[in-house]
């Protein structure tokens, strides 16, 4: 009985002593911090993804509290709502930004882009791109080794083993930009999510001349200018043999999608088209390629 008592007493004694020491150590070495930082950090999503450009949410909170003008700071994960509530809390004006989503601008799936050699090195896009032009004749498009999927902290981007291309889950994507930075080819772009999540974009970044692009990939942009001519809102520009749609000018009229001879322009979440006699045959061909994203 006495053994039990002694053991208990010693254990309790050590516990009390340790807690007293810890208490004083914590007091003595306490780092003084702006009291606003902690609640601000709590309002942030806490994903520590680095999408804001800071090392993590704590660093972002520090910057939000310190800077008087926070218009250049934005948390892509929390979005406008989070920024607004933080700005209200800190008494500053919130930056306005439209919600964005990551978009893969390459449709060079196995069926569209022929493989001409086999890469046998480390399973990584950055290794492959630092070595040579890639497994296909297109030296611009997706390499398909999935560096973007490895850096995504939200599980929003996955490789599709049938196409060899990454696919973005737009509900999970927070537009933190990690995949954009990870892609050595610059294939992924953050685009405006669009009204009702509807958007149209050019799914190609191949800057080679039309003939070379055509040889490498059946769905590449050949820079033919047809889309530019058909666009009534001057939203499309062709530079370096590749078209780009300015999301802020695009009105989703879909004329360019129909016009594109290679089907390089993709539409997402748009309702099925009314059957129009003149373009029916072409259109079905285009639409069958336009699905994911």
């Amino acid at each position, binding site marked *: 009985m006495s053994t039990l008592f002694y053991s208990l007493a010693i254990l309790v004694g050590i516990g009390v002593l340790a807690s007293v020491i810890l208490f004083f150590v914590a007091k003595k070495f306490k780092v003084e911090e702006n009291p606003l930082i902690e609640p601000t950090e709590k309002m942030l999503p806490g994903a520590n993804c680095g999408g804001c450009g800071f090392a993590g949410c704590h660093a972002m909170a520090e910057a939000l509290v310190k800077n008087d003008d926070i218009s250049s700071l934005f948390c892509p994960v929390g979005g406008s709502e989070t920024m607004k509530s933080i700005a209200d809390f800190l008494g500053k004006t919130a930056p306005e930004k439209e919600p964005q989503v990551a978009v893969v601008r390459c449709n060079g799936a196995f069926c569209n882009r022929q493989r001409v050699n086999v890469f046998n090195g480390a399973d990584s896009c950055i*290794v492959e791109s*630092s070595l*040579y*032009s890639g497994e296909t004749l297109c030296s611009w498009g997706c390499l398909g080794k999935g560096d973007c999927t490895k850096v995504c902290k939200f599980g929003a981007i996955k490789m599709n083993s049938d196409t060899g291309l990454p696919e973005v889950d737009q509900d999970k994507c927070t537009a933190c930009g990690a995949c954009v930075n990870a892609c050595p080819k610059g294939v992924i772009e953050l685009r405006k999510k669009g009204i009702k999540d509807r958007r149209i974009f050019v799914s190609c970044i191949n800057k080679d001349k039309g003939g070379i692009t055509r040889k490498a990939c059946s769905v590449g942009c050949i820079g033919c200018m047809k889309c530019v001519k058909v666009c009534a809102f001057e939203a499309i520009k062709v530079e370096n043999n590749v078209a780009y749609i300015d999301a802020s000018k695009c009105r989703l009229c879909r004329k360019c999608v129909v016009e594109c001879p290679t089907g390089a322009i993709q539409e997402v979440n748009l309702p099925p088209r009314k059957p129009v006699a003149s373009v029916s045959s072409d259109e079905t061909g285009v639409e069958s390629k336009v699905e994911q994203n």
Partner: protein
Amino acid sequence: MKTFRIGGFHGKDYKLTGDRAIEQMPVPDKVVIFLSQHIGAPAVCNVAKGDKVNVGTLIGKAGGFVSANIHSSVSGTVVSVDPVADGSGIKKPAVTIEVEGDQWEEGIDRSENLIPECNLDSKEIIDKISDAGIVGMGGATFPTQVKLSIPPGSKAECLIVNGVECEPYLTADHRVMLEKSDEILVGCKIVMKALGVDTCYIGIEENKKDAIKLLSSKADGGISIVPLRMRYPQGGEKQLIDAVINRQVPSGGLPIATGAVVQNIGTIFAIYEAVQKNKPLVERIVTVTGCYVSNPKNLKVRIGTSISELIAAVGGEPDNTAKVINGGPMMGRAMSNVEAPVTKGTSGILMLSARDTVREKEQACISCAKCVSACPMGLEPYLLYKLSYRRLYPDMESEKVTDCIECGCCAYTCPAHLPLLDYIRVGKAETMKIIKSRQIKK
């Protein structure tokens, strides 16, 4: 027998062509000459489409201090100055020339006569080397005149000639040492004069006994032959200096800090031809080999010749070829485009079968530390690999990734078949970028 201090490995050398004399390859119908065949600024093209050129005509002028002249290797008409895809499928500025006859520029001595005397002074020699567009021919392609111009504050004490050829399969330097031994020794004396030194060591690995014997019997006047134990990567500049004179290039320092200037055997021969015979660098020796190649050869080819023609000259690509490599098997580049031309740095073309070269599946690292003991620079490849994999590039700098010579010893020894060097190379490039941007900021 001497060798370097740490790391490296001894493997089979596969020198299939060591006893095959150099053969002259016929002049091709068309050549593609890249304007950047060296480290540093690309040369500036000074010909246009339709221009007539001769062998030895300057077609690209050095584009900066660290740069080299480019000469036409054939006579004919310039048909294009547009970019052409290199062995990796990446387009680079090039001059394409269609061949008509074989007209050489005046003043080039094409005879085989040995000219042992050189009455030029140091500056004149370096100028001649610079005019001839000579670069390091072991594969690094660093402009030779820059290497021979000793920076102020340093002093050259000796010349070390690299006859190691530690890469398996390659025999180009070996054959030059055997067939052009007198020219090599004259070349050494020219470089010694240019540097103002009176000692020269020619480091040769012991698997080239005939070359050691031949050169030892002829060497005089401060030139000595240093037989070295066979061990990869002895041909690395830092390893060779360590092996021959037992001095170590400090981390981040230049080799001249040890008082040694290293030149490759092929470069020495090119220097001899440039200084004594006014011949610019328009030809080089290329070993075209592989275990299944029907007739492997050492070929003397014009720069700009398509590599596919070289392959045809040795009996074509064997059916089981998986990889065609530009260079040796340890540091060479696998080519996706064999229509690419021979450049000044092409020391060999190697065809490997799938069994020899395809990588096995990666397994988990078992921390066996074989990579650490194999690293000739005393780095920790397993750690650098992990850091690069996680993209922690700033941490790689403090782990001295910039000392990595990319020799491949780590990946060669790894029992788990990890792609150590693949990731370390990327990490090194990223770290270099970080360092450069910091220097610019300052």
